[in-house]
């Protein structure tokens, strides 16, 4: 049986709009297994972005607990949480979220700098990863000099560089055309299959969800259904 890498226990996230409290997540409980490919799906306003922020340790729940590798994230201070996040989770954003003033190489190396890697090791690792995503010849290009697909590949490289166990992808193909989108999904799939990464993908697109092994459907801040797609299995 696969070990649990992340667990949400009765997680609530409540936003305060003036006098009114608006619950975005209402008592979510779910376990994510290590090495799984999970799609969190739901319509706009279903709470999937809130859930992604919590799973990504970018935010803490109003109530309930989130355990990442058995560590209660609410118990960590901001700096410890940042380092823990940096080591454990790699982010892929819809809008790539690259730093415009830095080259592809600098963007990808940045997480290693925050984790205080040795300069030489960091540079070697960065080159390896950029080559892996097929950007070995565009390392010193700035984001503005790259296409959308290439930027997303830089973003994927950045998410992989510190060798995290979890890759958290927020609408990873949302800004790409269908062909490039498919390439990105294939890349995620290979990471899942070949490198054993836990992939958590947040999307509103049911077609993308087909790539995932486990589907968590959200509606109005609650889990509607958790299903496994047995057609999607590691080869």
């Amino acid at each position, binding site marked *: 049986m696969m070990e649990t890498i992340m667990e949400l226990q009765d997680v609530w996230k409540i936003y305060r709009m003036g006098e009114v409290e608006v619950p975005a997540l209402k008592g979510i409980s779910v376990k994510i297994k290590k090495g799984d490919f999970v799609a969190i799906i739901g319509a706009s306003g279903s709470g999937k972005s809130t859930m992604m*922020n919590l799973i*990504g340790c*970018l*935010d803490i729940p109003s109530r309930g607990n989130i355990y990442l590798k058995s560590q209660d994230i609410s118990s960590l201070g*901001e*700096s410890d949480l*940042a*380092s823990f*996040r*940096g*080591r454990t989770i*790699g*982010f892929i*954003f819809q809008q790539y*979220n*690259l*730093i415009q*003033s*830095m080259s592809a190489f600098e963007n990808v190396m*940045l*997480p290693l*700098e*925050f*984790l*205080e890697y040795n300069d030489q090791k960091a540079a070697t690792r960065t080159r390896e990863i950029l080559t892996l995503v097929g950007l070995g010849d565009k390392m010193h290009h700035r984001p503005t000099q790259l296409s959308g697909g290439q930027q997303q590949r830089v973003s994927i490289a*950045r998410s992989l560089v*510190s060798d995290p166990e979890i890759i958290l992808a927020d609408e990873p193909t949302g800004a790409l055309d269908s062909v490039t989108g498919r390439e990105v999904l294939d890349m995620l799939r290979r990471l899942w299959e070949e490198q054993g990464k836990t992939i958590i993908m947040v999307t509103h697109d049911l077609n993308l969800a087909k790539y995932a092994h486990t589907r968590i459907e959200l509606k109005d801040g609650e889990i509607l259904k958790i299903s496994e797609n047995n057609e999607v299995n590691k080869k």
Partner: protein
Amino acid sequence: MKLKKCSKHAFNMVLHSKLRSWLTITGIVIGVAAVIAIVSIGDGMQQTLNAQLNTLGGDIVTISPGAERGGGMFGMRGGGGGGGSSGPQATTKEIVLGRSDLQALKGLSDIALIDTNIRGSVNISYFGKTGKVSVTGVDQKVWSQITTSTIQTGRTLDSADQNVIVIGGNLASSYFDQPIGINKMVTINSAAFRVVGILDDQTTSVYMPIQMAYQVIPDKTTDIYDTLVVKIKDQNQLDASISNIQDKLMISRHVTQNKMDFSVTSRKEMQQARAATMNSMSTFLLAIAAVSLIVGSIGIANTMFTSVLEKTKEIGIMKAIGARNQDILLIFLFNAAFIGLVGGILGIILGTMLSGFMPALMGGLPMARGTAIVTLNSITMALSVSVSVGILAGIIPAYQASKLKPVDALRYE
């Protein structure tokens, strides 16, 4: 993140917001340049004064009639010039220095030499041209040993001299159409004098034996002196010697401490008074320069706040990929410090250039004559001040940046 990396990212931030950073840097440049220029002029004047203090007879004491400190340079004789005065002692109206004072001082073991002086304004003619200059009658037997002036050409006054004078450099070279050379004859209040020496200075002074001065300066009475210039034996005992002189004169003049009708001033005191005036002037100017530095620092704070706003999303990205609060804090603090440092360095360069011109611009002010000196001290001070100003101005924006929640920062557009 390591400090080296933080500073690298901070430097990149400066490079990537060129115009705004340079505008902010300009503010600091002006502030630092002003401080450097003013401090260097202050240091220059201080050094000139110190040099004067060391060379211009720290062992010379001037005694003048009248209670005002340093007063009576040109005599403080009341009652219409005292032409009818019968003796050296003060009458009810006149306060003068006379032979009895001189005799009293001669009995003091502290004193090496005493020069008796009288001063006045006279008409001087040379080759048909006439002007008005100040003449000092000196005791030619001791003058050469007491005076701080040096002879450029010719000789000083001799004990046997009668109708001879020593003149200031300016009077010799440019006061009249034709320069006055050695052994030339000039007419002073109808009496003819031969020039025997020219001083190495830029004055129009005339020095002559005191006996001759009594004849040419109007309203002067023999054995009444405007000042007594005393050279004391031991410069290190200056204060004690001044005190002894005062005591001796109080006895001879029958006055008490409260009613002292003369003043004893040392050159050192005069220079110190001048230095004090100059110091307050420098402080005042420095305060004005400091204001521009404060304005510059507000500029840095403003730029940093704008930069934090502009980079909110980037801060969110950095935090998402593992940046800790202190990493963000350091990057922004280094950014502010860089602005301060670059501003400081450019300010020092500009300030040094300015300080070269300033003495010329301030030439009219006698205190400003001299060279401006940019010392290592003022450079270190300017650099540390500009960097500190940068860091201080950057603290709040940097703290604000470091405290941004990653989820909020990522959402910022």
